[in-house]
């Protein structure tokens, strides 16, 4: 087998060195009842050509050739060619966590750069090396806030991604950290500050908001922070669309920022692998979950980098660790790092500006459900989202995310997203179909 670099004669020689005469001797000491006698019910091993053919055929059973206006936490953005080039370097792809600093400076320095750029984007002072994804970064931030404040309640905005909210609730459930929600303004789609205020008290560890929120709407982070802080709670600001940070004020008033970097050169890849991150103020660094790279010097006094503050982590602290996370999403975070390097200061802004323009072009003429200011996603009222999406599929367009599943009160709405990749013709087609449908609905209602 091509992955096994041994000839049979080498195997025999090696067995001899082990005092054995056959491969079975290697497992002869296992209790007989645990030794499986049958072969695994798997097909015979395949060649790489068959394997590629198999996956290509599966790929063909996906949405090739469709335009798409899906967002909702996963965004279609151009992926600079360099991202794949860099992560395909064996030295990044096939290396382990950089515990041995002297032969891992490459990975360590890229993480240090990642941490720095996340700080620059978010207005925080320290970022970790990555979390599994945005959704799992949120409960980590919540737990962090609970440790910092020594309080035991979380308030989360209903405008945060519904799956993120679900993950949050499920994840902190058994750590005495009940999660309550506060609403959004039914007109603007922004957080309902009054509702938040009414639910805040001195047991609340953190208020969690997302901006732009699930509806694409830019939240008033400052106001939320003020409210939270007034009650001694922390503000956790969450982002799912990192591109927005190229244009929006950084959530510097927040105490913790948790987010998802999928938009930064990371393939949608049917939902993962992505890269989450948690960033905060230096005051809270010892409560951060996950790995952190720090700058130091070597024996000769030269600049060097290493993993640091590992006494927060499970491999040192076991049950007292800040998190159980071990493997993170390093290579994916590296893609995001390459993305940030490629776009840079001007590029990220131009990219964000293009997203803004595309989404506003798309929104023009559609019936927006909320009045709040939006970045590259927005909610439209469209009667039956499923029916509209069906009509769009006929034009090889994947429409928006029907919102009824997540928000029963928005059952007649869908979430549409446009990015720099959305083409004007596609958007025009979508708008045409929308218009013709609402006319025909109108026509029918007239009958």
């Amino acid at each position: 087998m091509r992955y096994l670099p041994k000839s049979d004669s080498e195997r025999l020689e090696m067995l001899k060195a082990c005092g054995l005469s056959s491969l079975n001797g290697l497992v002869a000491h296992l209790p007989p009842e645990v030794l499986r006698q049958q072969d695994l019910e798997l097909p015979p091993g395949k060649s790489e050509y068959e394997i590629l053919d198999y996956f290509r055929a599966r790929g063909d059973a996906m949405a090739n050739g469709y335009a798409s206006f899906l967002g909702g936490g996963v965004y279609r953005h151009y992926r600079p060619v360099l991202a794949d080039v860099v992560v395909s370097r064996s030295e990044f792809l096939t290396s382990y966590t950089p515990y041995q600093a002297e032969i891992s400076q490459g990975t360590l320095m890229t993480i240090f750069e990642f941490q720095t750029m996340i700080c620059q984007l978010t207005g925080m002072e320290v970022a970790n090396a990555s979390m599994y994804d945005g959704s799992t970064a949120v409960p980590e931030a919540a737990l962090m806030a609970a440790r910092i404040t020594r309080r035991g309640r979380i308030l989360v905005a209903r405008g945060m991604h519904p799956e993120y909210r679900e993950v949050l609730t499920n994840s902190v459930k058994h750590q005495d950290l009940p999660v309550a929600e506060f609403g959004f303004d039914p007109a603007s789609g922004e957080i309902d500050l009054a509702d938040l205020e009414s639910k805040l008290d001195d047991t609340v560890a953190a208020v969690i908001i997302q901006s732009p929120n699930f509806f694409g709407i830019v939240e008033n982070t400052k106001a939320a922070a003020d409210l939270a802080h007034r009650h001694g709670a922390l503000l956790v600001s969450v982002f799912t669309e990192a591109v927005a940070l190229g244009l929006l004020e950084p959530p510097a008033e927040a105490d913790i920022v948790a987010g998802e970097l999928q938009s930064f050169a990371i393939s949608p890849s049917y939902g993962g692998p992505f890269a989450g991150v948690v960033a905060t103020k230096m005051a809270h660094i010892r409560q951060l979950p996950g790995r952190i790279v720090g700058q130091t010097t070597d024996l000769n006094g030269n600049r060097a980098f290493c993993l640091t503050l590992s006494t927060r982590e499970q491999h040192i602290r076991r049950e007292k660790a800040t998190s159980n996370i071990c493997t993170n999403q390093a290579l994916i975070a590296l893609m995001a790092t390459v993305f940030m390097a490629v776009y840079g200061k001007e590029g990220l802004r131009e990219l964000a500006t293009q997203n803004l323009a595309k989404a506003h072009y798309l929104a023009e003429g559609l019936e927006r459900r909320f009045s709040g200011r939006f970045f590259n996603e927005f909610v439209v009222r469209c009667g039956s989202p499923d029916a509209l999406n069906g009509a769009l599929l006929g034009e090889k367009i994947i429409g928006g995310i029907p919102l009824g599943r997540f928000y029963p009160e928005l059952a007649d709405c869908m979430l549409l997203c446009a990015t720099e990749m959305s083409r004007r013709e596609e958007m025009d087609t979508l708008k045409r179909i929308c218009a013709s449908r609402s006319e025909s609905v109108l026509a029918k209602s007239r009958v």
Partner: protein
Amino acid sequence: MVSKVTQHPSQNEPLLFERSSPGKKGYQLPPLDVPAVDPASALGSENVRDEVAGFPEVSEVETIRHFTRLSTWNYAIDLGLYPLGSCTMKYNPRVNEAAARVDGLAWGHPYQPESLAQGAMEIMALLERYLAEITGMDAVTLQPAAGAHGEFTGILLMRACLESRGDARASILVPDSSHGTNPATARMCGYEVVNVKSTSRGLVDMEHFRGLLNPSVAGIMITNPNTLGLFEENITEITRLLHENGSLVYMDGANMNALAGISRPGDFGIDVMHLNLHKTFSTPHGGGGPGAGPVAVKRLLEPYLPTPRIVQEDDTYRYDYNLPESIGRVRAFYGNFGVFVRALAYILAHGNGLRNATLDALLNANYLRAGIEAHYTLPYTDRSLHEVVFSDAIQAKNGVKTGDIAKRLIDYGFHPYTTSFPLIVPGAMMIEPTETEGKQELDLFIEAMAAIAKEADENPELVLNAPHSTRVRRVDEVTAARKPIVRWEPAG
């Protein structure tokens, strides 16, 4: 004489920020095909930042050079043996990378209609089925993003099951040789951690174990083979006793590379376990991740698996969200799909020959053990499976510790083994070669270990100051932690 490695020039490179100069560009966007929108008026001027201060400005050629140069500072599997115990650093087949980049898969959006997602759903369904077959379990969720996340999911499943019986119970048993994620996980699921001692042979101390059993015990998190590379010979007895106690058995499957095709956890009483696709199933570690930590369960735990689950109806796959007893999502979307593609590609490549890979992994570990045994202390001497743990006891007499020997291995052209784990072995040197190493590479490693043992004896300073050949010398981790500098800031 180091025959594995020679010094050669390696390019220096500053931080991106130190390469930056205002106006340099690494990007270009297609021209905007819709009217421009003024950010301040669309978003409110109070919401629009002036700039991302400090963000780099570099050209494309500088960017590729930057990362290419940095890459050359790393060790990697593609460069040589990476014998990190417990990490299963095996060859990452390149065809898997090609498979994961197939357009329809890489650009698949998790919310695209099921009718346009059948390819991805079939991949997930097939991977679930194969993992169930390999582990001998009944059902699998692919949602968890890594091993620790799988543990978390698994313990939540146990908890849900116990709760359905009316009592979540209070504690989880964890052998003292276990990985740090185990106790950390138990704690995150609201359980107290109770340590189980190991015997002098390195196995679960049955007497101690029996004494710990009582109605508050929710279950055990057991690693088999354990972190010493030894098969828990009493595993059927252990699972039987726990089941009798009304407890459940979680297995940390990080060491499945020792069992695939040989022995199935489902057949020796395990109720729930995770797999590390980035270990046993060859998906690349990528400098720390991503991974995937699917959880396999017996029927009794199936109702609690996270939402959604994939179900097949005739030739069509669909998601089932209607799972009233489910613990719900542990992650947005469906998991690290790109990692699933790679792991399935790996399973397809070996197919029913997976057993041969396992046997080669055991052979390599035992061969290394035989080669090194003369020079280092072997605290536990039962037959090794996929890894072997030595201790620095002999060398420590000369002041040379496992960490020093590890650093000296670098000069010999190898990535070190895992140091200081498992905790029950003082000065542990935990070595896992995996099956994808040839005899030549192993012989060089044995040679290096022997040479270092000699150096530790005759010239300990040489080892204590290692590495000597790297572009940075031994790194000061203490200062790094004492005065954390965790981001670049402009000078002055």
